[in-house]
């Protein structure tokens, strides 16, 4: 019975023109967004090292002369001199891919020196030129990854392997949530519009819900997979596939780790899966109250925007942070943790929250169904 029900629901889903349109929007996003992405001014490693090298003119100029007379001051000055030298060597190594190892070794040494300065309190250095510990750890994570996996340190930012995670980060958050909610609006539509045909089917409410959520989840992921596939092929034909083992920085528990692009994309997709499941279940629950799918979408979008709105208004919304984690791109990159000043906003907690909230919502649906058969809810008013 359940299998037949799933088949029927799938048939209805395939007849749903609105979902096909939304699916085409998802699919087309990946090749179309590349037109904008390819025009973005992305800072290359050469640019970064050039800027760092140029900064040293100002750092030395601003260094107080009287400090150099002290032993501590001299040590800091020597440290800075060595850093400048290492950066210049790195700029040189970047010319030749064969010198990757030297670049990495100098990079690691450079960041050790930067950390030493932090320990010494960065005395004599203008605050504008202090490299934050966060930036140091990010760079060290990348250098250690290059060292461990022997991958190119000068990736082309416009190849498919770099584009796909960036595209997923862009579509993630509110745009993806909105697409999921709009696709999900069809879940209960024919139960309401074709009530007398559907209401007597010998399938329990929860079985119906799980079938509908499962099918819609499947559809969303088919669209997403086709979109990623078409986007990848399109970008690969234009600039190349790149390497899916090249590193991407991942924020976790207050630190940054370098992981492969494949790892990062899989985490993004896992998060998308959990977010979609959560949103579909929540939309069913909210729809039970509003009895109108569009009011449901509006309510949930408002709820998702609430943490940012409250933050902008200067109101403490820390209890709503799990909702802000829907913007999974910001969570994975650590931007959410910086924006909301909370080390708590990392991907592990985000995924746990999504799974936990989904379970909680399912428990509410289960209890609601169960309570319908008790005298409390079966009383007049129907």
């Amino acid at each position, binding site marked *: 019975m359940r299998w*037949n029900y799933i088949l*029927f629901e799938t048939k209805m889903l395939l007849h749903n023109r609105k979902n096909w349109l939304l699916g085409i929007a998802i699919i087309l996003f990946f090749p179309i967004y590349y037109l904008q992405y390819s025009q973005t001014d992305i800072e290359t490693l050469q640019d970064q090292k050039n800027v760092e090298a140029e900064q040293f003119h100002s750092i030395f100029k601003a260094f107080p002369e009287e400090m150099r007379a002290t032993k501590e001051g001299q040590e800091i000055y020597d440290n800075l001199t060595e850093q400048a030298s290492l950066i210049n060597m790195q700029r040189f190594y970047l010319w030749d891919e064969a010198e990757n190892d030297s670049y990495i070794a100098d990079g690691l040494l450079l960041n050790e020196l930067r950390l030493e300065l932090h320990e010494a309190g960065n005395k004599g250095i203008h605050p504008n030129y202090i490299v934050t510990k966060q930036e140091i750890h990010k760079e060290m994570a990348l250098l250690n990854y290059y060292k461990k996996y022997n991958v190119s340190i000068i990736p082309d930012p416009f190849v498919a392997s770099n584009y796909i995670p960036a595209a997923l980060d862009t579509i993630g958050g509110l745009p993806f949530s909105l697409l999921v909610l709009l696709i999900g609006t069809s879940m209960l539509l024919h139960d309401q519009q074709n009530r*007398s*045909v559907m209401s*007597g089917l*010998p399938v329990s409410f929860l079985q119906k819900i799980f079938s509908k959520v499962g099918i819609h989840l499947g559809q969303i992921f088919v669209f997403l997979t086709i979109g990623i596939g078409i986007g990848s092929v399109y970008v690969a034909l234009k600039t190349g596939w790149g390497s899916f083992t090249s590193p991407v920085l991942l924020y976790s528990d207050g630190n940054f780790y370098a992981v492969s692009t494949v790892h990062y994309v899989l985490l993004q997709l896992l998060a998308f899966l959990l977010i979609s499941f959560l949103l579909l279940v929540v939309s069913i629950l909210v729809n039970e109250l509003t009895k109108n799918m569009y009011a449901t979408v509006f309510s949930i979008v408002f709820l998702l925007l609430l943490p940012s709105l409250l933050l902008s208004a200067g109101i403490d919304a820390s209890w709503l942070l799990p909702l802000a984690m829907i913007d999974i791109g910001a969570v994975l990159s650590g931007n959410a943790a910086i924006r909301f000043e909370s080390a708590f906003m990392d991907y592990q907690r985000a995924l746990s929250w999504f799974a936990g909230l989904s379970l909680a919502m399912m428990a509410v649906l289960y209890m609601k169904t169960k309570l319908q*058969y008790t005298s409390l809810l079966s009383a007049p008013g129907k």
Partner: protein
Amino acid sequence: MLKLSDLSISYQDKIVLDHLNFTADKGEIIGVAAPNGTGKTTLFNIIANYTKPDSGSVLIDGKYTYRNEKEEVLIHKLLTTFPEQKDLFEELSGTAHLNLYASMWNGSSKRVPAIIDKLQMTHYVKKKAKTYSLGMRQRLCFAMMMAADTTVMLMDEVMNGLDVTNVALISDCLSEMKRKGKLIFVASHLLENLDLYADRVIFLKEGKIVHEQRFTEDRDIYLKIEVNPVGYKSLQSKIELPSGHVYIGEHLLCIPLDGLTLPEQTRWIEQMLGQFGHNLTVGPLGTVEYYEKYYS
């Protein structure tokens, strides 16, 4: 098979069902006669648990009642309700509708072609439902019930929009389903048609069953005379009518013949023949007459 105990429901001040009790067995067709808004659909909705009663219970197959969702699913495996035409999926074909009901209740669509044949739907069943006429849609709704083939069927306004030929066709099918042991509730405005296949017709009024007409038992025979109110009054002033007589819908005088001796019966017939000869019949009261009795 089905036992309704003490069912009551009211909406605001209006009592729709009032401590209603009823039992029915397999192999019966129960007609439900009542004007619009008197609780027929509510009764069906309560039996199917689409509406919760204020009090009372529905017992199916001697063991299932709507205690929890598991039991509801078990009951719904035994029971189907007649789909409304407006609720058909416009973009799906009739076959898709039939396959849904056949597979959901029987796990297979093997019987669907035979049903299509039986209900003469072959020429249109593969087209989308949005192209169907009222009668085609109604036949499809009925065919869906046949495809589900459950033990209990609740059919609200089953003959809506059907022409005479199709009414006869559906009536045949209903009789056949009854022979196969189905318990079928039929609410229909075609009251004379109910007489053809129903075993019982219940009349709902003010939330209660005011009369139950059984076609399977010996029924009282009446002398039925078409007479206008003036004629009826004049008759009352001239002769003393038997105590069990009824005057229905201000046009039909019914004099019970049971309990009268043969000479008495002959005397009444002769007397009435003399006055209203062309408008006189003898027989039991039909559903139409009872309907007029209770609702006119």
